[in-house]
Every structure is written in structure tokens, then in C-alpha cells.
């Protein structure tokens, strides 16, 4: 059973007084990740909101050793750290338990500029956890489109709403045949916690993607982060699933949507709550463009239902 939020460990690795916006989903998610990983870990970041908010030199708002490295290289750099700790341990230069190596990267650093290095690290099955906190845009540079921005969303570089659907990144990572892939989001902290614990205890490459509704990019009220995250799942715009050694299982409540026990909520309410979509309503082709958003969601649900049946 999913760990209850009340049962999460007390330990805090995200310290108070960091520079994130109030209600920041990335920071909220990182806090849960910290509870699962504990202090014996090395954190790698690439330029993003999470770097901008981690504190300014020499201060640090995350209680791990942290390196912010070149934007395109989270995959390869994490491999560098992983191999370094492993060989130093083998040679007797590191004492105690091997630290968990994890990358904490935005969707830009995952879907776009960092895709090549990530794909290669997965193919090598290097032993670390790659987290993508997905706020569906380049938030740090002022909300530009990324490969994770869904169709219809306004960003500063899609001024009439994005015309292309997003990539199914978690599925792409699944196709790399790595031992563990999972999706999560902040409204389901116990689910996220359990997945991180599983990843921590699995050798090899792990990929966990966390949907992170960002009030700034998505244009909703700051206190509504968790509600938005829940609506994303209930509408089927975000599916909670995990795959151990390639075998997909869906988590509640996405499992109910997938097996048809409960229909996904129509996307309209989710769309209306967000300025990045509801601006579409002013366009002459509003109806067809909202239908496109719904179409993308339905297609992904159907696709993942079928994909999960492949277990060879």
C-alpha cells in the first residue's frame, strides 16, 4: 500500500529559506525526495529554477553536496560521479555506504538539450537516479516552450498556443530497457516517496518524472499547486505509472482510468483553471483547439493501456 503522508520520515533535506516561489512544485517534490533518499546522496543539477532557488554562493538550501553543471550534460555528468564514487570505494578511498547519486533536472534539461546525454546514460545503465521535475516549460528563463509543453499551451515562444503535442518522455525512457521508470506528481506524495525508495534500492539507471504544476508558467493562483496536480491526474492529462524491469503497472487513481473503472474527468475544468490554456478560448477556433488537447490526452491513455500489455 502507498505510504501515508503522515508516515513520511521527519528528516528535511530541503532547508528553509531557499529562493523558490511560494507553492513551488519542484521544491515540494524535492522535499519528498529528500525524505526517501536521506542525507547520504550527491545531487547534480543543471541550470533551472531549482538552481536559481538553491541559494547563492556560498549558501546552499539543499542539505546534500550539490553540483550545478552544464545544461546538456546531466546524464553524462551523473555517470561521472557514479563511476568516481564506485571506483574510489573499490580502491578504499571512500568509507561507509556508497552515496546515492541523483540528477535533479527540469524538463528542458531532460526532454531537449539533455536528451542525448540522458539517453546514453540509460543505455549504459549507469547506477543513478535521474529525476525530471516537469513544469512543462523553461521556467527559469521566463517560460518558453519545451518538448514537454502540451499542445495548446501559451508560452513566450508559443504566443498563439503550442501547435505540437508533447513527447511521452517517460515512455521513451522505458524503451531504453532500464530497470526502473516511474511517473509521479506532488498531489500524491506517498506515491512519489515509495517510488523514490524503490529507485534507491534498485541498481542501475532509474528515471522518475514528476509533474510539477508551476503557477508562473501555467498561470493559476499560487496556492493551487497541489489542486492543479490532482486535476492533471484526474483528467488523465498526467498518468501515474511505474515499470519495474519493463513491466508497467498503473497507480491509483490513474489505474482506474486505464482499466475503465472510472472515466477521466473532461479536460475542460483543468484547462479553464490555467491561463496558459484558457487564452485559447478567445481564439476563433477555440472549440477545435480544446478538442485537440482532449484528443492528445485520450490518445496517450489508449496508447499506455496497450503498451502496458506488452510484457516481453
Amino acid at each position: 500500500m502507498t505510504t501515508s503522508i503522515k508516515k513520511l520520515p521527519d528528516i528535511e533535506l530541503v532547508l528553509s529559506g531557499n529562493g523558490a516561489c511560494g507553492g513551488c512544485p519542484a521544491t515540494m517534490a524535492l522535499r519528498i525526495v529528500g525524505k526517501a533518499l536521506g542525507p547520504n546522496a550527491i545531487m547534480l543539477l543543471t541550470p533551472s529554477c531549482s538552481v536559481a532557488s538553491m541559494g547563492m554562493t556560498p549558501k546552499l538550501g539543499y542539505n546534500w553536496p550539490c553540483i550545478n553543471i552544464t545544461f546538456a550534460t546531466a546524464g553524462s555528468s551523473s555517470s561521472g560521479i557514479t563511476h568516481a564514487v564506485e571506483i574510489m570505494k573499490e580502491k578504499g578511498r571512500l568509507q561507509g555506504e556508497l552515496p546515492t547519486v541523483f540528477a535533479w533536472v527540469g524538463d528542458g534539461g531532460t526532454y531537449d538539450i539533455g536528451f542525448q546525454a540522458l539517453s546514453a546514460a540509460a543505455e549504459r545503465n549507469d547506477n543513478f537516479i535521474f529525476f525530471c521535475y516537469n513544469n512543462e516549460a523553461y521556467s527559469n528563463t521566463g517560460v518558453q516552450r519545451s518538448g514537454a509543453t502540451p499542445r495548446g499551451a501559451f508560452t513566450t515562444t508559443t504566443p498563439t498556443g503550442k501547435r505540437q503535442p508533447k513527447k511521452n518522455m517517460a515512455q521513451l525512457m522505458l524503451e531504453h530497457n532500464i530497470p526502473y521508470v516511474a511517473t509521479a506528481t506532488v498531489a500524491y506524495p506517498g506515491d512519489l516517496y515509495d517510488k523514490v525508495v524503490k529507485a534507491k534500492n534498485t541498481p542501475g539507471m532509474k528515471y522518475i518524472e514528476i509533474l510539477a504544476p508551476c503557477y508562473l508558467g501555467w498561470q493559476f493562483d499560487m496556492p493551487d499547486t497541489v489542486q492543479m496536480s490532482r486535476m492533471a491526474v484526474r483528467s488523465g492529462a498526467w498518468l501515474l505509472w511505474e515499470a519495474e524491469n519493463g513491466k508497467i503497472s498503473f497507480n491509483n487513481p490513474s489505474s482506474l482510468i486505464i482499466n475503465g473503472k472510472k472515466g477521466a474527468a473532461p479536460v475542460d475544468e483543468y484547462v479553464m483553471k490555467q491561463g496558459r490554456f484558457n487564452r485559447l478560448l478567445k481564439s476563433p477556433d477555440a472549440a477545435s483547439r480544446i478538442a485537440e488537447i482532449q484528443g492528445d490526452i485520450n490518445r496517450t491513455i489508449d496508447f499506455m493501456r496497450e503498451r502496458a500489455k506488452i510484457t516481453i
Partner: protein
Amino acid sequence: MKAAQVIMETGTKAAALAVKSARVDVVPGYPITPQTSIMEAIAAMVENGELNARFIPVEGEHSVLAAAVAASATGARVFTATSANGLLYMHEVLHMASGGRLPVVMCNVNRGIFAPWTLWADHQDSFAQRDTGWIQYHCSSNQEVFNTILQAFRVAEQINIPVMVNFDGFAISHCLMPLTIPPQEDIDRFLPPHEPEWRLDPAHPSSFSNVTMAAEYAPFRQMLSDDIMASIPLVKQAAQEYQDITGMWDGDTIDTYRLEDAEVVAFAVNSMAAELRLSVDILREQGVKAGLLRPRLYLPFPTEDIIDALPQNAQVMVLDRNYNFGHPGGILASELKSVLYGRRNDITVKNRVIGIGGIDLTRRFMADEIRAMMDE
């Protein structure tokens, strides 16, 4: 005491053997001619247990150096190698390594860069990285490649600045020459284990390269600039102690030949400088008082040693195997002129760009070239 071993090896194998002697921990790699055989040799040594290290076969050079930087920040001794477009592809991460004060050592096997496509040596690739904050050696023999990699690790780890060891594709990388491998205990004496002051360590959480305001950023950059200059005595000390322990000497910041009474001084780097010794002999036979000054260190530019070494009223013939686009001639010549200005007004500097894209540089050709420059 064990005796040194003498073998016949190529330049790339010499580099790989130096990596083994240096007891390197992590080697990320990616193939590019003419460097590839370094990576192949290291991958083989790791597989067969000769070298207790991790070889990480990443997907491109940008990732090669990123993995190297991250492994170095974790406290490992790290080596890699590249050439030409691979080096250019690393450009962003070269800055990360130097700004991050990470003592990575990298060989660059010099090759012309495309377009158009070429496989053969010139020095556009390494000189184009002048402003990335790396210390740069340029080597003229297989033995010097071996020796310099060990010296490079020592200097890099003493001052926390990455070091690039350059040598020519094919003329060095693929040619067999005698190679002396000193006994391992001598090398261990010269190059102690890497014990960084700082590393990514969960017992001491600290940040590495997060946002830094100008008040802190500016002193970081100033320190890097100062420390690059301060590496010169360390380079000399490393060369000296290496000689004391192994008996081998390639020069320190510079290497000279028949320079003391020279009126005409050839000035060049890498394998062409080895060949230029023979050109100097030819010129001497012809009655020209010729000599050679080879900067072994290109960066930091060994200003004081060059100024001290050049004979009075010499004509310096700079043979550049690169272009200084937007200026006449090559990069070495402009570097030299800028350091001589106001300090050695007795010196005349002349310059030719030769050997681009691997054009063969024979002793006769270069002797003739220098004679022609004398009449200009």
C-alpha cells in the same frame, strides 16, 4: 632498484601508458581520429585489469568532458583525450573545468578543424581554446608526451587547474619511437595520490557553481587568472623533479637548441619543432648562426623565460601552424610580439603560416623557408 623499461611505441600508446603509470581513476572517452587509439588502449587496459580504473564510453565529447569534470569534483583522478572537432565540441565544458578548479588532464592530439574536412595536423584546435583557462603544454616527441602527462597531473593537482597536453596527429600519434618507462615506484614518488582539499562529499554538504553574485564571482575569476600565471614555477619544478627522479628532460616552460649565440631563431611548437633542430643544423652548415626556441608551455605563455633566452638582436622566425584570423599570419607570432613589445626592442619578429592540414614539414623545407624569411 628496478631499471627503466625501453620499448618502441606510438605517441597514443605512450599517452595511454602514462595514464596507467599515473594510476588514473576515471577515463570518459569518445573516438576521433587521430586520438582514438588512446581511448582504445585505455579501454583495453581497463578490461584486462592492467589499469584499475573506470572507462566510461559516453556519447560525445561534450559529455566526455562533463563526465570528467563531475568525476573530478567527486575526488577522482581523471584523464581523457580528444582532437580537433571533439575539442571544439567541449568548449563550454572546458570553461566549467577551469572555472570549477578541477585538475582534469586531457590530451589533445592536434588536427586541423573542418570545414573543409581534414584528418591531419595543424594547431588551430588547441590555440582556439586559448581563453578557456587551461594550462597548455605542446609536445614534440612520444617520450615527451609520456613525461608531460605525469608532470601535468602534478601541476594540475597542485594548483587545481586543468591541463591540456597537445601533440601532433600522425607525426607523433601514429609513429613508433623508443619510449622509456620509468619504474612504477619512481613515478609514484613523483606523483603522489590525489587528495583534493574539496570534493562532493555527503559528510560535508556544500555547493558547487550555483548562482554567484559579482562580489564573489569577480574574485573567483581573478584567482583563476592569478593562479594560471602562478603555475609557471610549478611547471618548472615538475620538470626539474621529474628529471631528478627519471633522468629525463624535455625542457620546462621552453626548450632550446643551439640558441646561445644564435642570430636567427626558429620559434615553433610540437613535432615541427623537433624537425627544426635538424633545420638549425642545416642552416649552421650553411653558415647561418641559427637556433631554436620551442615554447613547451603555450599557456600560460612563458614570457619571462622567452625574454631571458632570446639572444641580443636576434631575428625570430615564427613558424605558425595555424591562422590568427583577422590578423596577418599566425597566433604564436602575435603572442610573441605582444610580450616582446617595450621589453626587447632589439628583436625582429618574422612570421610564416606553414604546414596547415598536415602539409609535410621537412628539415630542408623549413631551413629554406627560414633563409627566405631572412631576406624579407
